[in-house]
């Protein structure tokens, strides 16, 4: 029978999902108010992945989410403040304000972040896993990328190498049906991207990406196998992003009906129903958790106010390598 979280983990997981959701809502508001510049890609609707993947990994396993990765970064250990500070481009941001939304990298928590070049983190992740393996580590690398990224040549080259060298890397394709405005059913020549694994002799599977317990138990199973028997795996998770691709997306390429259907399958609502049923939460305790999370995000945002940004001189210090042992 299907895997179920116990009470403690259920609450932690729910809180993580709510944190991811609220964080993105807040970022969205701040963009609308012009408080954050540049652009961002929000993961609302994909919280089951955020709460299902990183928690299923070891603390020292690495992740490389894609550009829609705030939730994954929080799940791996960065605080909402760490990330909000980066979006606000202040010194206390994870990348000292030099990276921005697309590049939330936090090596303290073994998060190598995303590349702004869609798909290029796939070979990078593969190389990291290869080095972990040759250095005798039992840790693995998990990289998430979208349906559209699977059309990049980098995907092909990386998966082939991972296969011939038995690299312990877990490829998670977050198939949210669109790459920007382009439907996967148009741009991706196969129905299930997971089958692309067969082109490299890589085991693969498709699962519902909105069922957090399924995502968690699957990732845990795969990661544990991979530690014992190092080789790559391609996991496709079907999900949906509720908002536009980035700010300034009118979403003319999809129907309101489709959006409504998927909102019916809200990962948080579905999990909430289960927890109510299992008696792990009550309407009241859930609302309480939501307000706590909101308060936490507000506090994190507040904390960014009036914080300093790094200087040109300091920035210049990061252009070239520093010498000595690393």
């Amino acid at each position, binding site marked *: 029978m299907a895997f179920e979280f116990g009470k403690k983990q259920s609450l932690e997981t729910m809180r993580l999902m709510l944190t991811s959701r609220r964080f993105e809502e807040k970022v969205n508001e701040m963009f609308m108010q012009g408080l954050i*510049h*540049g*652009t961002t890609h929000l993961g609302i609707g994909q919280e089951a992945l955020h709460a299902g993947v990183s928690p299923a990994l070891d603390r020292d396993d690495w992740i490389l989410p894609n550009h829609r990765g705030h939730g994954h970064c929080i799940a791996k250990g960065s605080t909402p403040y760490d990330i909000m500070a*980066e979006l606000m*481009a202040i010194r206390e941001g994870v*990348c*000292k*304000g*030099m*990276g*921005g939304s*697309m*590049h939330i990298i936090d090596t303290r928590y073994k998060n190598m972040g995303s*590349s*702004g*070049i*869609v*798909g290029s983190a796939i070979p990078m992740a593969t190389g990291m896993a290869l080095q972990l393996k040759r250095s005798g580590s039992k840790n693995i690398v998990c990289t998430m990328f979208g349906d*559209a*990224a699977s*059309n*990049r*040549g980098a995907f092909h080259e990386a998966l082939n190498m991972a296969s011939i060298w038995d690299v312990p890397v877990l490829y998670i394709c977050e198939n949210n049906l669109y*790459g*920007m*405005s*382009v439907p996967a059913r*148009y*741009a*991706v020549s196969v129905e299930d991207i997971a089958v692309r694994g067969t082109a490299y002799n890589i085991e693969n599977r498709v699962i519902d990406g909105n069922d957090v317990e399924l995502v968690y138990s699957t990732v845990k199973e795969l990661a544990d196998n991979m530690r014992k028997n190092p080789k790559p795996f391609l996991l496709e998770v079907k999900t949906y992003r509720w908002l536009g691709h980035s700010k300034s*997306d009118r979403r*003319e*390429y999809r129907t309101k009906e489709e959006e409504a259907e998927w909102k019916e399958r809200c990962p948080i609502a579905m999990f909430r129903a289960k927890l109510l049923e299992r008696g792990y939460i009550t309407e009241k305790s859930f609302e309480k958790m939501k307000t706590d999370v909101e308060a936490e995000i507000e506090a994190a945002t507040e904390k960014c106010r009036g914080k300093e*940004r*790094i200087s*040109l001189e300091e*920035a*210049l210090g*990061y*252009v070239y390598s520093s010498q000595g042992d690393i």
Partner: protein
Amino acid sequence: MAEITFLQAVKDAMSEEMRADRNVVLVGEDIGVYGGCFGVSRGMLDEFGTDQMLETPISEEGFMDLAMGASMVGMRPIVEIMFGDFSTLVSDGLINHAAKYRFMTGGQVQVPLVFRAPFGSGTGAAAQHSQSLESMYTNTPGLKIIYPATPYDAKGLLKSAIRDNGPVLFFENKLLYRTKGEVPEAEYTIEIGKADIKREGTDISIISYSRMLPVCLEAAEQLAEEGINAEVVDLRSLKPLDTETIINSVKKTSRAVIVHEAPKFGGFAGEVVSSIMESEAFYYLDAPVERLGGKEMPVPYNPDLEKQIVPVVDDVVGTVRKLVKR
């Protein structure tokens, strides 16, 4: 004459040429329903349909080579790369294929292909979405390279690029898209390889292109108030380079400064400096030719720093003052 935006000028140039010749095809990501990442092709799908609007997967290298192949058998593709930064992914198609096939085949084929891409910093898009990469291409025999600064030039030069039987690179600065300028209703083209004197002057030649042109023009206005009468030369095409106009201007003013957004070291200004040095204009120089370029660093997300890394009006004014004092 109507006032239109730079963006509209690019769109009009493509639309007119696509109407005139069904083999002119726009190739790129999210160019259809979405209308292009920056909205350049908004509405074009309705007029031209999928036959002339080829919406691609995220496969830059692949669709550049695909378009290059098609161009040898009758298509006249306009390949839109969403960000100039991603031209790294198509540099093989441009440098090793498009630029060389006519030569390698002893003239058997031609490659009537246009590469178009938005580029530049100033939008908070950070290091991988803000570069000015002309120097990757200016040393490649076989390529023509255009960097227009005004709607008038953009339209006339893009039409010439589309009609050219060889590969032409056309770079559009993001910050220019919304700028306006007069463009005649009547059909016209502008010859590739001709610079344009955007402001007549006698005391110094400020030589620039693309987004730095308005900066230089504003600097010239400020300098005029101090009694310094600067000539502003808009290169428009980097390759072929209109050395004649450069040389004549410098012979007249006996001073020059070259301004571009790309980092100064290894930037295109070096070619312009050399073209002056190698001409009789050298003997007219009353001061060394100076270069103003971007700082030696990737583009930071931090907006305070992002502003500081490209030349601004004060930099141009200051440099000119210094040179004219000499």
